[in-house]
C-alpha cells in the first residue's frame, strides 16, 4: 500500500498518510475549490488502510482553517476511521488548535460529539 504525501499549498493542506507507521496527518489550510476531488484519494486510501490497519493508528489534524465542504470531508474521513474502533484497533486522534483559537477548539469538540472515537484536543 503506497503512502500519500502531499505538500501544502495556500488552499490545500499538507497530507501525510503513512501505512507502515500507522500515522495519518492533515495540516494547514483546507479550502480547495473542489473538496471532493482533493479528499477522494484520501478516502480511498483510508478504505484500503482499514482493511489491514496497524495495531496503533495515530491521526493528526493540525488545521488552521477549512471551508464548509472540507468539514464534511473531515467528518466522512473520521466516519471511515470509526471502523478501526469496531475492529478493536487502537486509534489515537489528535486535534491541534492554536492557543486562543476558540473556533478551532470548538470545531474539534463538534467532531468529537458526533464521532465514536476518542478525539484528543491539544493546544499548540
Amino acid at each position: 500500500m503506497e503512502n500519500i504525501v502531499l505538500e501544502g499549498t495556500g488552499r490545500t493542506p499538507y497530507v501525510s498518510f503513512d501505512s507502515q507507521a500507522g500515522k495519518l496527518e492533515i495540516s494547514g489550510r483546507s479550502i480547495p475549490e473542489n473538496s471532493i476531488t482533493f479528499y477522494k484519494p484520501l478516502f480511498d486510501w483510508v478504505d484500503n488502510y482499514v482493511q489491514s490497519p496497524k495495531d496503533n493508528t495515530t491521526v493528526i489534524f493540525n488545521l488552521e482553517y477549512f471551508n464548509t465542504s472540507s468539514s464534511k470531508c473531515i467528518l466522512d474521513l473520521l466516519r471511515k476511521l470509526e471502523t478501526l474502533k469496531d475492529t478493536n484497533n487502537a486509534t489515537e486522534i489528535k486535534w491541534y488548535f492554536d492557543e486562543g483559537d476558540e473556533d478551532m477548539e470548538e470545531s474539534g469538540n463538534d467532531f468529537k460529539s458526533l464521532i465514536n472515537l476518542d478525539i484528543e484536543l491539544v493546544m499548540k
Partner: protein
Amino acid sequence: MANSSNVFIRELKALNQAKEILEQTGDSDVVSKENFVELCTHYESLLGDTRVITNISDRLQNKLNRANDVLHERSEEIKTINDQLNEQNLVLQNTIDELTKTKLSRRAATITIIAAMLLFILSEGLLEPIIEEQARKADYHANWISFAFKGFIALLLKPIEYLIERYLQREAIRKKERQEAVQEIQQKTKTAR
C-alpha cells in the same frame, strides 16, 4: 466549477435507495422495518452532519468576519500613515525646492560677481585709456564719461544675475526631468522582467 453537493454522495445514494424501495412497495402501505431503520440511521447521520457542519460553518464565517474587521482596521491605519507620509513628502519636496533655489541664487550671485570683476578689469584696463583719450580730443570731462559707463555696468549687474538665475533654474528642472524619465524607464524595465 466546484460543486459542493459532491460531498453528499453517500447521502444521495441512501436517498435513492430509499426511493427505490418506495417504488418497489407500489401502492402498499407496508414498508419493511429493516428498510425503515436503515433510512432512520442515514437520516440521523445526515442530521448530525448538518448540525456540526452548520456550527462549524457559522464559526468559521465569524472567524473570517473578524479577520476582515482586522484587515479593514489595518487598511485604515495604512491609509492614515500614507496620507501623513504624503504630507511630509510634500513638505520635504518644498524644502528641497527652496534649498535648490537658494543654492542656484548663490551660484548666480557668484557668477555675477566674477562677471562684474571681469567687466571692471576690462573697463579699467582697456576702456578707460580709450575714453580718456577720446575725451581729451573732444575736450570733455573724462571722469564723467567714465563714471557714467561704470554706473551703466553696475546697473546691468542685477538683470544679469536674474538672467543667470533663471537659466540655472531651467537647467536644474531639465536635469530633474531627465532623472525622472530614466527612473521611469528603469522601473518599467524591472516590471517587464
